[in-house]
């Protein structure tokens, strides 16, 4: 009997227990065993964490009426699960600072977007793939711009990938094979706390049975970060000299003489470069993990491009791959969904009725700062808290519709706020992990309101209203 049929058999019985014990808190648990059922606690296993790009799918959540306890989740993941019972949650729609009925709020949002000449649909990284597809439909219907978190984070990496091509693999391969990890411009012990223990360093792999003793770790970072403190070799470069060092490494790897000026420019000694190259050549399976330190710094898309070329060159000597440490759980999802619907990974414009792609022109920050955008629909993104001040100031002066879970800086720029659902926890959803593997996150609870079941549901309603209103306008 396969796992799915087992679950469907077990489910009805469990649902009954849940209704009795946890009173509407949990509805649709994928795989559940009741623990201390008399005390009203339910344990959900194989839950997917929808916080960072790793999308850990081995989380255990112990739910009771008044508390949530997690197992295997990191500090950041646990904080996200606690939102389910948080008292500080947006639970009703707000229009111009006043509480409003759901459909009235959706209609107001639709009016704002229809009136705009150049609306921007911003799909946040915590949105499920299904909701993203609905968001893209809205943009197409309105003739607006579509962008997402992947442009303000790893947009340059995607551009580098388009230029060079990426030698990639799945996280499972890294876990089982890699004996050298190079963390370039990233600090996974802070940004992806389970990265080292689960995929790259401390776990025992099929071909790396010794765990951390069988693996080496290099960190290239201008800071002595908490990851760098654990490394076998910390290459402390001057900020903004990544391209030069990557170029020098390629020269050294080919056995050619490296120009001495590199020491002065990058702050890295020749001995360190030689040591790094020796470690690369000695490993059996190496991985370069790219962080935002490589994509957001001087050189932007050229840095990931040359890093990918370095990974290609390393394959002349050993097996080497390169992966990006994506920040949000569905950053990669936006690239995937947009690519299969429009052909482009981010920064897409529908104003001419067909998709066009131009980073720097149709990307969120650029379009907002130029004053081009005259309405914004933001989904689980908190633009107010993530964009530079100049861009947020612009948002203050245009109509903004937000779908948000918790009040935050985004609330200051929003005219209409629609309560958000936590995709992957309160409704099912698909999320693309940092290695572009889709993970199906199954819900284990329900949203604390009745008017919508998921962010996709909200966006489909909005799409329907926009469609209706546009038809009415054209009919007249």
């Amino acid at each position, binding site marked *: 009997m396969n796992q799915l049929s087992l679950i469907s058999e077990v489910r009805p019985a469990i649902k009954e227990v849940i209704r009795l014990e946890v009173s509407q808190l949990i509805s649709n648990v994928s795989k559940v065993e009741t623990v201390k059922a008399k005390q009203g606690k339910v344990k959900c296993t194989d839950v997917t964490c929808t916080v960072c790009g790793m999308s850990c799918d081995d989380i255990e959540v112990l739910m009771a009426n008044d508390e949530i306890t997690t197992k295997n989740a990191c500090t950041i993941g*646990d904080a996200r699960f606690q939102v389910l019972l948080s008292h500080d949650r947006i639970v009703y729609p707000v229009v111009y600072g006043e509480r409003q009925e759901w459909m009235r709020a959706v209609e107001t949002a639709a009016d704002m977007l229809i009136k705009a000449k150049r609306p921007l649909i911003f799909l946040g990284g915590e949105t499920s793939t299904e909701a993203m597809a609905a968001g893209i439909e809205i943009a197409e219907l309105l003739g607006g711009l579509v962008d997402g978190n992947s442009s303000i984070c790893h947009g340059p990496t995607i551009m580098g990938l388009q230029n060079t091509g990426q030698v990639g693999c799945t996280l499972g391969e890294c876990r089982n094979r890699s004996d050298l990890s190079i963390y370039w411009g990233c600090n996974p012990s802070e940004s992806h706390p389970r990265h080292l223990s689960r995929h790259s360093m401390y776990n025992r792999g099929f071909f790396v049975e010794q765990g951390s003793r069988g693996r080496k770790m290099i960190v290239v970072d201008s800071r002595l970060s908490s990851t760098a403190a654990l490394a076998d070799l910390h290459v402390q470069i001057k900020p903004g000299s990544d391209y030069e060092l990557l170029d020098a490494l390629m020269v050294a790897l080919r056995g050619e003489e490296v120009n001495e000026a590199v020491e002065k420019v990058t702050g890295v000694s020749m001995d360190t470069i030689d040591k790094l190259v020796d470690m690369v050549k000695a490993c059996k399976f190496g991985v370069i993990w790219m962080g935002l330190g490589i994509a957001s710094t001087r050189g932007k898309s050229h840095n990931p491009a040359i890093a990918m070329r370095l990974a290609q060159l390393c394959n002349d000597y050993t097996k080497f791959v390169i992966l990006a440490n994506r920040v949000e759980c569905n950053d990669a999802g936006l690239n995937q969904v947009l690519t299969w619907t429009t052909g482009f990974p981010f920064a897409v414009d529908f104003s001419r009725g067909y998709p066009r792609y131009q980073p720097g022109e149709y990307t969120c920050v650029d379009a907002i700062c130029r004053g081009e955008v005259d309405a914004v629909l933001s989904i689980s993104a908190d633009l107010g808290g993530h964009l530079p001040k100049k861009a947020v100031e612009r948002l203050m002066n245009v109509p903004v519709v937000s779908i948000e879970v918790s009040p935050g800086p985004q609330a200051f720029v929003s005219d209409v706020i629609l309560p958000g659902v936590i995709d992957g926890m309160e409704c099912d959803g698909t999320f693309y992990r940092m290695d572009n593997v889709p993970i199906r996150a199954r819900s284990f609870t329900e949203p604390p309101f009745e008017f919508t079941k998921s962010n996709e549901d909200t966006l489909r309603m909005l799409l329907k209203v926009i469609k209706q209103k546009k038809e009415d306008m054209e009919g007249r």
Partner: protein
Amino acid sequence: MDIILNTGSTVYQGAIIKGGNKFTDGYTREAAYCNINPKDFDALGKPWFVRLTNEYGDSVVVRAKKTNTQQVGEVFVPRGIWANVVVTPETESTGSPKYKNLPIKIEKCEGPVMGPEELMRNYYSKGRKSDFYERTKYLDKKSGQKEH
């Protein structure tokens, strides 16, 4: 003093923003500080607070932290609304603003550090043309929904 600013995530700042606690004191504690190399820290006059200013003249006050993790001539501020005051929106045609390797000025100053709501009202909302749209944004009237 001219210095290079790098912003980035930390685990505690991540836990606060993912936990939906962006209007708490914890957010100020975990995101409104600046890591400074001991040599730069002494050169600044051992400050409690520092003011960071970008090329446009936008500035923000954060707590100063003396740490050995930074190189001389380089400071680190966790990702958040304090750092974003000085982050400039130039993307070099890539869509990604200058979150890293941004030349700024740093100086010793008096506190206090503004809380998140105060910062949003006084800094980010300053450029708002209230007469342009005769209506209120969400938080002009309410500061949160506590009914859940």
